[in-house]
């Protein structure tokens, strides 16, 4: 339980940065897709190098987790569903102004109608599971 409270706090910091950085703002997402401001690109262009350099140092100094386990480098496998799925997600992102993380933060910020969007995202996830065997793009393993 103590660990889970830790993850809750990590989520709080992440959510605070998304919210205060306006990455959950529908206005900002539209502005980004229209290439009319640097703001959102600036967020990506700082977040990714900070993440990459952090992973580099975690590996270089062989940092262990809190519980002393070796840290595994994240690995992502390719399957064609990545392209099809991401395109569909991109359409949804343009409509809702939210990727999955911001859905939670938008609700927290008082946009209660976003609960409907979140429920629909859950329905989308569920329907994907239901029809997965009919779709091209390989069967994701996990």
């Amino acid at each position, binding site marked *: 339980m103590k*660990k889970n409270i830790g*993850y809750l706090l990590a989520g*709080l*910091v992440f*959510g*605070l940065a*998304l*919210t*205060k950085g*306006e990455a959950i*703002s*529908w*206005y900002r997402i*539209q502005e980004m897709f*229209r290439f*009319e401001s640097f703001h959102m690109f*600036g967020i*990506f262009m*700082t977040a*990714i190098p*900070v*993440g*990459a350099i*952090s*992973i580099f140092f*975690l590996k270089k100094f062989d940092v262990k*987790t809190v519980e002393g386990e070796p*840290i595994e480098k*994240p690995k*992502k496998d390719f*399957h064609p569903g990545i392209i*099809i*799925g*991401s395109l*569909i*997600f*991109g*359409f*949804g*992102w*343009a*409509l*809702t102004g939210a*990727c*999955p*993380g911001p859905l939670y*933060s938008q*609700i*927290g*910020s008082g946009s209660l109608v*976003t609960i*409907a969007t979140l429920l*629909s*995202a859950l329905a*989308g*996830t569920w329907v*994907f*599971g239901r029809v997965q065997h009919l*779709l091209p*793009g390989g069967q994701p393993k996990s």
Partner: protein
Amino acid sequence: MELLYKSWPWYVAGPVIGLTVPLLMWMGNKRLGISSSLRHICAACVPANIPLFKYNWRKEIWSLFFAGGLLLGGFVGGWVFANPEPVAISAKTSEYFSSFGIHQKSALMPEEIFNWQTLFSVKGFLLMIVGGFMVGFGTRYAQGCTSGHGILGLSALQWPSLVATCSFFLGGILFSHFILPYILAL
């Protein structure tokens, strides 16, 4: 005090977002990613014997706590210490919104279109229900979203995540240029 209410510039928000990656790895070899929480909720609530939802979701409970934290983060940053100023988007975007009767009164969501009344109109149905469905369906199909592929995957220099990131940006750019204007005009 005033500083608490202000929005953060990109060079503050970006690095904090990036630091979540090593933080979660250090806390217990966890991978930043939110779309998986949607899967865990499906697995917990309506598994329906679907292979994708047949696993021990309790082992992934951290992800639901993390999602709860995101909600709290939105509450603290967007409600308790909400920025009273409207979002400072570029004049060009602002003009574009005005042409559809959308005015920036707040920092985050345009109340003119995201409200309970529009939810039951064609416009709101497309924006929230269809949009939300595509977010959930697409991210599961791609096995990751902006955080899992865009932040974590790219930080770990995984080329499939680069493909994903390019694809969802392409999808978003095409959609917002060629289709969204028709929906906003409804």
